[in-house]
């Protein structure tokens, strides 16, 4: 008992330190976003805000108005919503099919999905950009199909893990009650899988919202900027960086995601556990 208590205490201290280490950069950005540009240098970055260095909310206003933040926010929102919706709908159905019709093709398909999580994005990005151009998938309104391809691996893996825990008898009862496979999915399977939908949805949202590379490679940057790309635009020519507005922009980017995550936190953990352990 004594040993357990000591172990617990040590672990608490270790994890507190780690948590602080993780939060620290964000807090720094938050603090610096209220400073004037000149006050954010390598030397003074860690100083707190004082009356002289404070820029008030000027940075935020500048970030919002200078580079078309509203448009970028709009595009990012569209891309995220369409991609996540597509992933949730397609991957859940695919996972259910793969698990229930357990023939050789489905097994091969499942392993392919899992393997696709291993392949790094960098291997594909060159061919991807030319392919996206030729297929016309280079606007914010249809880049969701590319996100579907990349996000399917994790989504199918997690959904499949959860579907395996649904007793087959419930679906058999639905069949006897008169459901076609489609009706079985929507009336019986989908409601049971709600927690997994939420957790997969949040993970995919976090990924798509913050994604820089894919929109940068595929979208025409002059026409369609997403927020991560926009942040880069605070780097002017000749290496001059407007750090203040950039910090403000970063804060405004991560704030929605943090709020969504905090609201849905417990669903993520339960979803990942049930998906991963049973997988």
């Amino acid at each position, binding site marked *: 008992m004594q040993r357990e208590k000591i172990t617990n205490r040590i672990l608490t201290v270790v994890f507190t330190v780690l948590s602080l280490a993780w939060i620290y950069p964000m807090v720094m950005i938050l603090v610096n976003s209220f400073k004037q540009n000149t006050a954010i240098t390598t030397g003074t970055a860690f100083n707190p805000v004082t009356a002289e260095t404070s820029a008030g909310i000027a940075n935020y206003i500048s970030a919002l108005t200078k580079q078309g933040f509203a448009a970028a926010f709009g595009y990012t929102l569209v891309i995220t919503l369409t991609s996540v919706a597509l992933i949730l709908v397609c991957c859940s159905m695919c996972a259910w099919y793969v698990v229930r019709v357990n023939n050789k093709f489905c097994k091969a398909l499942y392993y392919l999905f899992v393997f696709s999580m291993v392949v790094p994005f960098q291997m594909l990005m060159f061919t991807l950009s030319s392919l996206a151009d030729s297929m016309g998938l280079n606007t914010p309104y249809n880049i969701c199909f590319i996100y579907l391809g990349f996000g399917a691996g994790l989504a199918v893996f997690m959904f499949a893990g959860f579907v395996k825990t649904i*007793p087959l*008898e*419930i679906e*058999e*009862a*639905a*069949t*006897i*009650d*008169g*459901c076609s496979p489609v*009706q079985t999915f929507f*009336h*019986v399977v989908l*409601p*049971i899988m*709600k927690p997994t939908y939420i957790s997969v949805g949040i993970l995919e949202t976090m990924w798509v919202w913050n994604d820089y590379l894919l929109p940068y490679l595929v979208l025409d940057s002059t026409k369609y900027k997403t927020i991560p790309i926009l942040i880069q635009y605070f780097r002017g020519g000749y290496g001059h960086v407007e750090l203040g507005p950039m910090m403000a922009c970063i804060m405004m980017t991560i704030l929605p995601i943090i709020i969504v995550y905090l609201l849905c936190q417990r669903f993520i953990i339960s979803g990942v556990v049930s998906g991963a352990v049973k997988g």
Partner: protein
Amino acid sequence: MAEIVLKNIKKIYPNEKTKKHRFGKKAKEPEKKSNLQVTDEGVVAVQDFNLTVHDREFVVLVGPSGCGKSTTLRMIAGLEDISSGDLLIDGKRVNDVAPKDRDIAMVFQSYALYPNMTVYENMAFTLKLKKVDPKVIDEKVRSAAETLGITQYLDRKPKALSGGQRQRVAIGRAIVRDPKVFLMDEPLSNLDAKLRNQMRAELIKLRHKVNGTFIYVTHDQTEAMTLGDRIVVMRDGFVQQIGTPQEVFNHPSNLFVAGFIGMPQMNFFPATLVRDGASYQLKTPKFTVDIAPDTCKKLAASGVDAAETDVTAGARPEQIELVAPGEKGAICGKVVVSELMGATVHVHADVNGSEFVLVINTVDFDKSKGSSFGIGDDVWFKFEPDAVHLFDKETEKNLIQA
């Protein structure tokens, strides 16, 4: 309500293709996992199943795990394909008809209630899919709920119910459908012992209220005996015997059925049947039993001619009576175990290597003619005259064919 006919039903689970090793090595033989027949085509789960279930009859399929009873039920339901044979419901061949069109309702072992719906929605689901008028649905659901005593749970979700309540909801879901056939797959197995006894009695009451055709699967012979109009005993995919509970109990067709039906199990011992003209005697190294005249006639009629036949004899514990020590024709055994069940005592006595179980009423203790039941004590007993069952040693079939 309907008549169901199963003709030569067979179910084969096809073999997975054995992998060919490289360099011409022979592939490993698939392990034999059970006693089921393994043919070239695959594992035969159900062999040559023939049965006619009459309208409004309650038929119980009973047997040990892996005997094919659940597989047969699922074939009737349409959840498994029938490899060969015909399934007819009301004269119509339904082998290829989808489950929802067979007009059947099934109660699963784990109840299979939809967890996201309330009890009311669970019971109304099938009617809702058929787009029945909501008022009609309401009427049917409430009447079924009243029959089963679950009206107060209609707004609850399954996770807020106990096992017995969930089981009633599952049955209610079946009743609401008003099907031709009720199929039940071990519905009482997930309940605790006391609740199981209660629900068994309730099922009997329910059966008379609903008055439908029931096909019930269980591994518990007590359920089979109490619930069934007729019992089908199965083993390793084969049907062993079909008959009323009384027939199966009094005239088991083979050793397996004799041992499976009846609690405690029938006592078996090796013996030799000796024929002496028209009368027979059962001889063992330690004792001899005269066979009753009625049974002798039946044996003769069944063509048991040989002077000596090796048999496995059986005697039910309830049909063994205590006698005074040393009485003529009595068998002496040494008590090995004595189990007090309350109103009766189960005494296990060893006779020449064979263990006999006797069921003795505790009220008989004082009149037990001097014998007691401590371990190592002698106990003297006799079979009731017509109590002995005789089974061929090799074929295990009852010598007396009905």
